[in-house]
C-alpha cells in the first residue's frame, strides 16, 4: 500500500493541529437560513478520472460532512475546458452549482476564446491545487536511456533530428501548450503534438509506445512512475524537484530563465450568489481542505511542491496575474490575444 507510515503520522499530526486551530473557527461559520437544503453539484470541465475529478473527490466527502448535504460531481469535458461553461451559465446563482475550473480559464479569457472573465465574473471559493509540470518518457524506452536512466539529452538529439520527429502526448489546455512552445523555442526543435482530453488516453499513448513523450504534473503520474511504466526526464522548474533530485530541470541544467506556468484548480460560484452563501461556502471549503482526509490526498499527489491552498482573495489575485501572464506569453508567441489586454 502506498501510504507509508511516516506521511500518515505527519498527516495525522497536521490534522490534529489544524483541527485544534480550526475548531474554534468552525463555530463561527455562519450557516445561512435555508441553505443548503438539497445536494450541491460541483460541475467540472475535464474527464471523470483526471486530476480535476480526483481533486474534487478528495474534497467531496469532507465538504459533504460539514454541510450535511450530499455533494455531487458532474463532468462535462471537451473543447479544452470550455464546453462546460454554457451549462454553468444556465444554472441559477443560488450556490447549488459550483464550478471547478483550472488555469485554462484565465488563459482562454486572455486569448479571447471566452468572454467569461474569471477574475471578475466569478466568486472564488478557494484554489485547491497548485502544481508545476515535467516531461515523461516510457519507462523502458531504450532510445532515451543512458545506463538505464532517463536522459533528456538523448530526447533532445532525437527531437532536433527533424521537424515533427518528437511526438508529444498533450492536452488542449493553454498551460501545457504554451509550456511546450516555450520549450520548443528554448531548445530549438519542433514537435508533433497529439491532444487528448482523457488522461487514460494521454498516458496510454506514451505507455503503449504510440507517442514519445508526455507533458504532465508529477502527482498525476506518480503511480505510473513508481511502476516503471513512465519515467521523469525533465522538470520544468527553476530548480530540481526535491522529490526527483536525479531528474534534470530546465532552470539549473539547461539555463531556461522563465517563471514556469502552473497548473491550478479552484472552485467558483456565480457572481450574484447571495453574500452569506458565498461566505459560508468559502469557510466550508477551507475547512474541508484542511481535514486529515484531504491533506493525505495533497501529500499523496505531490501537490505540496508549492503551497496548494489559496484564499478567495489570493485566488482573485492569482487569476488576475494569470490573465496578464498569458496575454504576455501569447503576444510573444504571436498568438491571438483579447483586445485591450
Amino acid at each position, binding site marked *: 500500500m502506498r501510504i507509508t507510515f511516516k506521511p500518515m503520522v505527519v498527516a495525522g499530526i497536521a490534522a490534529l493541529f489544524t483541527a485544534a486551530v480550526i475548531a474554534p473557527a468552525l463555530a463561527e461559520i455562519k450557516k445561512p437560513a435555508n441553505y443548503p437544503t438539497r445536494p450541491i453539484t460541483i460541475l467540472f470541465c475535464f474527464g471523470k478520472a483526471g486530476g480535476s475529478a480526483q481533486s474534487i473527490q478528495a474534497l467531496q466527502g469532507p465538504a459533504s460532512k460539514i454541510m450535511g448535504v450530499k455533494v455531487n460531481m458532474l463532468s462535462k469535458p471537451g473543447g479544452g475546458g470550455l464546453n462546460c461553461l454554457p451549462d454553468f451559465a444556465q444554472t441559477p446563482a443560488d450556490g447549488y452549482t459550483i464550478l471547478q475550473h483550472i488555469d485554462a480559464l484565465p488563459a482562454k479569457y486572455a486569448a479571447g476564446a471566452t468572454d467569461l472573465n474569471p477574475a471578475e465574473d466569478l466568486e472564488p471559493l478557494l484554489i485547491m491545487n497548485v502544481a508545476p509540470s515535467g516531461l515523461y518518457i516510457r519507462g523502458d524506452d531504450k532510445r532515451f536511456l543512458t545506463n538505464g536512466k532517463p536522459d533528456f539529452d538523448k530526447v533532445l538529439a532525437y527531437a532536433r533530428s527533424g521537424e515533427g520527429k518528437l511526438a508529444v502526448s498533450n492536452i488542449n489546455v493553454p498551460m501545457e501548450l504554451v509550456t511546450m512552445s516555450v520549450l520548443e523555442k528554448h531548445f530549438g526543435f519542433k514537435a508533433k503534438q497529439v491532444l487528448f482530453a482523457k488522461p487514460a488516453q494521454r498516458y496510454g499513448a506514451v505507455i503503449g509506445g504510440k507517442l514519445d513523450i508526455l507533458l504532465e504534473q508529477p502527482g498525476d503520474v506518480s503511480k505510473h512512475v513508481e511502476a516503471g511504466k513512465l519515467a521523469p526526464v525533465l522538470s520544468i522548474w527553476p530548480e530540481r524537484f526535491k522529490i526527483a533530485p536525479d531528474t534534470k530541470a530546465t532552470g539549473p541544467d539547461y539555463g531556461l530563465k522563465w517563471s514556469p506556468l502552473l497548473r491550478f484548480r479552484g472552485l467558483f460560484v456565480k457572481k450574484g450568489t447571495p453574500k452569506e452563501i458565498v461566505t459560508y461556502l468559502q469557510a466550508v471549503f477551507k475547512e474541508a481542505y484542511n481535514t486529515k482526509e484531504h491533506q493525505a490526498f495533497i501529500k499523496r499527489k505531490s501537490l505540496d511542491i508549492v503551497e496548494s491552498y489559496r484564499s478567495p482573495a489570493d485566488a482573485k489575485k492569482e487569476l488576475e496575474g494569470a490573465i496578464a501572464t498569458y496575454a504576455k506569453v501569447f503576444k510573444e508567441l504571436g*498568438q491571438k490575444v483579447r483586445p485591450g489586454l
Partner: protein
Amino acid sequence: MADRKRIESPASRRSRVEAVVWLALAIAAFIVTFEFDGPLPTFEFGAAFWPRVVIAGVIVSAGVLLVSSYFVGARESEAVIDERTTDALSEDAARVTRKTLAIFAIPLVYVYAIHQVGFLLVTPIFLLGYMYLLGVRGWVTLIAVTVGFYGAIVLIFVKLIYTPLPQGAGFFHSLNGQLIGLIQ
C-alpha cells in the same frame, strides 16, 4: 427510362420532396461552415473539415435519392407507407386529426408547464389528462394509476435520490422548493 412506362406513386413524389429539402439544408449548412473554417494551431484541417465531409455525404446521398425517385420510387418505400393513414381518412378524419394533434401537443404543453409551474404540481394533471385523451374512462383507474405512479415517482426521485426536477418560476419556484423540503 424513356422506353418504359414510369410508375408514379405518392412514395416517389415524397422522396423527391425530401431529397430537395435535404439538398437545401445541406447547402445552407455548407455555407455556415465558412464561419468556422481555417486551420487551428494544433489541427491543420480545422473545425470545418469533418462537418464538410458529412455535408458532402448528405449532398451525394440526397442526389441519389432524387435521381432514383424518378424511376425506382415505386419500388422502395412503398411497402412501408402507413396503411393506417388511409384507414384514418376513411373514418371521421377531422376527429382523428384533432386527437393526433393533441397527442403531440399536450406533452409540449406539459414541458412548458413544468418549467413555469413546477414538476410536482403539473405531473398529476398531465398523467390524468393524457390517459383520458388516449381513451381511459374509468374514474377509478384514472385516479388509482395517477396516485400510484405519481407517489412512486415522488418517493424514488424526490425522497430517496434527490433528483433535480423542474421547480417552476417565480412564486412557484419557492412553493415547489418548500414542497420538496417537506417531502425530504
